[in-house]
C-alpha cells in the first residue's frame, strides 16, 4: 500500500491555480438552464470571500468551479441534472455534489445541492439519510423560473450538512 498524501489548505491565492472548469456547466442531452446563487458563510455569519466551490454531476462535461466574491456570494450557471434510478431501484433526485475549499479549510468539505421543486426529493436515497431538521440545508429554493438560492454555511445554527462518504 502506498501512503495517502495529506490535504493542505488551498490558502488565499487559490485563484492563481484553480482555473480549469467549465461554466456554464453542460452535459449531453440536458437542456434546462439554471442559475444557483447563494452565500458561502463562516461561523460568525460573515461571507467567506476567498473560497472556491466545485460542482459535479455524472455525465457533465467538467466540474463547475466558482470562486466566491469578497462578500461570500457565489453564482453557478448550469443545466439541471436529471432524476435517476439505479439498478437496485433506489431513486436519486436531481442534485449536484459540491466540494468547498477555502483559506482556513485544511481539507475539503463535501455536500450536495438539491432543488425544492423536485418531487423525487422525498424518495432520494441520500436525503432520506439526513436528519429531518437539517435536510433544508441541502435544498436550494426556487426564487424565479430556473433560478435557485442556497447558502452554504460551514459552522453554526444554520450549518450545512457535510458528508462522510
Amino acid at each position, binding site marked *: *500500500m*502506498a*501512503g*495517502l*498524501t*495529506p*490535504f*493542505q*489548505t*488551498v*490558502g*488565499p*491565492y*487559490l*485563484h*492563481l*491555480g*484553480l*482555473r*480549469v472548469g467549465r461554466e456554464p456547466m453542460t452535459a449531453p442531452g440536458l437542456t434546462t438552464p439554471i442559475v444557483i446563487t447563494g452565500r458561502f458563510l*463562516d*461561523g460568525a455569519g460573515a461571507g467567506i470571500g476567498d473560497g472556491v466551490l466545485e460542482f*459535479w*454531476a*455524472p*455525465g457533465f*462535461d*467538467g466540474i463547475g468551479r466558482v470562486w466566491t466574491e469578497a462578500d461570500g456570494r457565489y453564482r453557478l450557471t448550469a443545466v439541471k441534472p*436529471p*432524476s*435517476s434510478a*439505479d*439498478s*437496485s431501484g*433506489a431513486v*436519486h433526485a436531481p*442534485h449536484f*455534489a459540491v466540494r468547498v*475549499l477555502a*483559506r*482556513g*479549510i*485544511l*481539507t*475539503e*468539505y463535501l455536500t*450536495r445541492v438539491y432543488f425544492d421543486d423536485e418531487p423525487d426529493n422525498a424518495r432520494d*436515497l*441520500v436525503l432520506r*439519510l439526513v436528519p429531518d431538521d*437539517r435536510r433544508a440545508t441541502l435544498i436550494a429554493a426556487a426564487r424565479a423560473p430556473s433560478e435557485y438560492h442556497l447558502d452554504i454555511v*460551514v*459552522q*453554526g445554527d444554520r*450549518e*450545512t450538512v*457535510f*458528508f*462522510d*462518504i
Partner: protein
Amino acid sequence: MAHGPDSRSPVSIPRGAPDVHPAPDTPAYRATALRHPTRPLVVIPQTLTEVTGPVYGRESIDPLDHDLTRQHPGEPAGQRIVIEGRVMDEGGRPVPHTLIEIWQANAAGRYAHQVDQWDAPLDPNFIGAGRTLTDADGRYRFVTIRPGAYPWRNHHNAWRPAHIHFSLFGHAFLTRLVTQMYFPGDPLLALDPIYNAVPDARVRERLVSAFDLSLTEPAHALGYRFDLVLRGRDQTPMEYS
C-alpha cells in the same frame, strides 16, 4: 431519465487510511476557528455521483503550461528547479492522464495576486501557475523556480515555509486532493501550523519533496522528486446503492 453506469465502469472508492489528513479544527491555524463544521458529518453511501468525475484531456493544457519559467518574455528570477513525480492510488497503481494544477509565490516570496500586498518584489516574468496531465504511468513533470518563504498574520513573526500548491482530480469526485509540496531541510517547517496540522509526523513528511541528483539537469536546474498518493480505487465493480 435514467443514467446507466458510464463506459469507464466506475467502482467504489475505498475509504482512505485513517488519521492522515489535518483536523478541520486546528487552533494553531487561526483561520480554522470559524471555518470548521461543528455538527456531525452524515455518512452516506457512494453513488454514481461520487464514483465518477470530470475528465480533462490535452485540450485543457497548453504546451508550455508545465514550464513556469517560459510563460513570459524573459526568465524569472530565482533558482530554477525541476519537479518530477508519480501519482498513484493507495494500492500503488498509477493514476494516468489526470489533471494537476499548481500555483506558488515567486523567488522573493510574493504571489502575483492582488490580495498579497507585502513589500517583496513582484517578478514581471513570473505568474506562478501551471498545469499538466500525468502520462500513462502516472508520471508528471514541472519546471519552475524555487518559491521564497513569506510572512503571514497568523501569529507574531509567522512565516510560511517555501511551498508549491498542488491540486489533483484523480478519476472520481472522491479522489480529489489539494495539498502543498515543501522542500527538504526548511527550518520553517517545524514552526508552521499548516504543515504541522497533519497529526502524524511521519505522514507529514510525505509533503516534503526529496532532492534528487538524477533529476538535476547539469548547469541548468536542481531536481526534486514529489510523489502523490490519492484515495484509491479497488477492483470491485459496485452496485449503485
